[in-house]
């Protein structure tokens, strides 16, 4: 949690020597609390106070970065329990697990499929976060070779899973500089794994399935070895128990009541015996309940689409709906005779309507009215998407100059506005389109003949 100016002031020298450039220590403390100045500007803070202030102002859940380059995954830094309090920060990395016993063909097929699984939704590209390669064979060469094949087929960051430190060492040589997540430090091997994480500057997962007491203790020990970028794994349990653990870890971290728990958490949605549907529903629960890395055994597109959509829903800003700008948008390459449609600036609405116009294969002009990011019906109910607004946007957005035809298609949901709009825009032929955008392609074809 951020410290207040007064809390910081207590740890300053209180001599008001002004060397920091501020008239008093209190003034300096106030600026510090707003993060507008660096602590280093005061030459007289004691080392103890410095350490304390750094620790106190650290985020309650540490940010951990897995991988490098464009697709690196950032997790952690969450500050709340409920999304209406403040937006959840880093969406979890949905992870596909592949085993080193798969055989090259099957492995290639799965990794390629995972790499390709990507959907555009509401203007965002949704895809998998990580690929986890698991050393089931206990064979060093097989593991390294599996990693090799995986890397050739994906640029997603990796999780390397082996309980054998010597095998892990070989794998890390193979992935030098790529910062994979090492899975995992356990009671038995944590010293060796911590040494590897330090040597290769990689984040390290810490796994203990014996309850949060044990997990905290182990995480503390690993921190004691000098590794700070940790991801916690509370082990495989029933969904109810895992939700309890995830909730307890998040609460403890936010309250800073248990030191070893201020890290992102990873969970396995599909342990053996869980069917493909249940795997998705469990993963969904974990998205809602604070997991940062969620491991799947199967990742077919029909499973991923609902899951990615849920992730997008839960991690949107609760105060500010996603919006597009008021303007005329070209869908395809419209000319002066192409159809003209109008809708609101709620991103979801815009992208759905634009997508359906594309499906119609007919170029068109889409006029967007700024109604503070509300859907058609919501904006209508709030009296924001009314006849006055529609007439005003049509007259000012520039469509009159770009297109010569004067046919305007209204959303079917606001058919009641037809009369008024027609009156306010006398030179236009106003038409009511279908209620559901999915019927737009059919409607547009009918109009054109």
């Amino acid at each position: 949690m951020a410290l207040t100016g007064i809390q910081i002031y207590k740890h300053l020298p209180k001599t008001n020597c002004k060397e920091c450039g501020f008239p008093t220590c209190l003034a300096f403390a106030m600026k510090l609390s707003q993060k507008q100045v660096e602590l280093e500007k005061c030459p007289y803070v004691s080392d103890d106070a410095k350490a304390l202030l750094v620790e106190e102002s650290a985020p309650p859940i540490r940010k951990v970065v897995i991988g490098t380059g464009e697709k690196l995954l950032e997790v952690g830094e969450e500050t709340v329990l409920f999304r209406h309090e403040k937006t959840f920060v880093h969406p979890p990395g949905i992870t596909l697990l592949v085993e080193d016993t798969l055989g090259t063909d099957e492995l290639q097929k799965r990794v390629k499929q995972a790499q390709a699984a990507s959907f555009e939704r509401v203007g965002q590209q949704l895809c998998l976060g990580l690929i986890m390669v698991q050393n089931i064979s206990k064979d060093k060469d097989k593991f390294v070779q599996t990693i090799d094949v995986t890397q050739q087929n994906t640029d997603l960051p990796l999780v390397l899973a082996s309980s054998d430190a010597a095998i892990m060492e070989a794998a890390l040589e193979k992935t030098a500089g790529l910062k994979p997540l090492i899975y995992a430090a356990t009671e038995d091997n944590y010293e060796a794994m911590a040494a590897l994480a330090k040597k290769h500057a990689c984040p390290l997962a810490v796994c203990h399935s014996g309850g949060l007491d044990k997990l905290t203790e182990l995480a503390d020990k690993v921190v004691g070895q000098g590794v700070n970028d940790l991801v916690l794994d509370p082990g495989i349990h029933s969904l109810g128990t895992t939700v309890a653990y995830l909730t307890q870890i998040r609460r403890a971290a936010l309250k800073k009541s248990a030191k070893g728990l201020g890290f992102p958490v990873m969970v396995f949605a599909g342990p053996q015996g869980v069917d493909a549907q249940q795997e998705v529903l469990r993963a969904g629960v974990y998205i809602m309940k604070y997991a940062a890395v969620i491991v799947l055994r199967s990742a077919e597109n029909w499973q991923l689409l609902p899951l990615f959509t849920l992730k997008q829903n839960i991690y949107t800003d609760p105060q500010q709906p996603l919006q597009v700008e008021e303007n005329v948008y070209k869908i395809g390459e419209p000319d002066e005779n192409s159809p003209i449609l109008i809708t609101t600036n709620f991103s979801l609405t815009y992208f759905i309507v634009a997508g359906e116009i594309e499906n119609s294969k007919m170029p068109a002009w889409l006029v967007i009215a700024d109604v503070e990011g509300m859907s058609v019906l919501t904006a209508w109910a709030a009296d924001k998407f009314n006849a006055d607004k529609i007439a005003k946007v049509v007259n000012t957005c520039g469509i009159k100059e770009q297109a010569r035809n004067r046919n305007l298609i209204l959303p079917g949901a606001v058919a009641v506005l037809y009369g008024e709009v027609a009156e306010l825009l006398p030179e236009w032929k106003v038409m009511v389109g279908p209620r559901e955008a999915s019927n737009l392609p059919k409607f547009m074809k009918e109009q054109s003949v």
Partner: protein
Amino acid sequence: MPFAIPKETYNGKINSVTVGKDANTVSLGGISTYPFLGFEGQSQASIPIALEVWNSAPLDWPLALNELYGDVYADPVKWALTCQDKYKADMIALRLASTHPDQGDTSPEDAAQVVKQVLEAIEVPLIILGANHIEKDAEVLKACAEAASGYNCLIGKAQEKNYKTIAAAAMAYGHYVLALSNLDINLAKQLNILLTQMGVKEERIVMDTMSSSLGYGLEYSYSVMERVRMAALKQNDTMVQMPIISDVGIEAWKAKESKVDEAAWGDTHARGILWEATTAVGLLMSGSDALIMRHPEALKQVRKTVADLTSVEG
């Protein structure tokens, strides 16, 4: 140092509402924690799930549902029995769709007749739903409440503009009121206050704070329900301590992703079921106590997830 489990202290409790007749009852609510946190109080032991039945053949249901129910669309009694016996629904939600002025405008008497026939045939409790038309619902539900006298049904949805008639009929014939508000904790509370001021007992109200589908507003429903639960359990606000039921199927099967063949989205059938089930689980995790669904396979999947959520190791 052993880890001190950070527990929430709750000051309130969700009312327990029991609908149905004789031995065939179902209870909603009765919990005292945020969803499924059994380690700190009384959490959901199970979630009652209703399957949806219409009094007329739906024209806009997708293939996945038409395949299952097409044969019984013409006969609401058979349809309800299929849901009860074959698909093991905990309740039946009878939506009187054809009473809507734009969808047939059938009469309240006609609707009441169907309600009677369904009630005589089934054993599980019945939820009686209007067609979401303010004026017509009031008329229709009044007639249906009388026809269902003695069966302790849940009837609605009563809204700000028509709650008086519906609540009066529910009280007169011993039913429970399903109160619908629009994604706003204050509106939800206001409607409950109005209902209780009319004389409806708090324990005879169930709320619908408005469901939305995955991908189409789920996050709004989610956060409203979380806030309602906070007010109910932390601030002990008795005017939002009613159990919540979510109308899942009607929203989830509207979404394009649940029904359109699109190669890049994978198998349509499996995706549709999962779209409904994921929407349902999202609503459960934010505070819903009961569900109205459409696809029996989605119902089964949600039941499995709930069983897994309620199983906590010692």
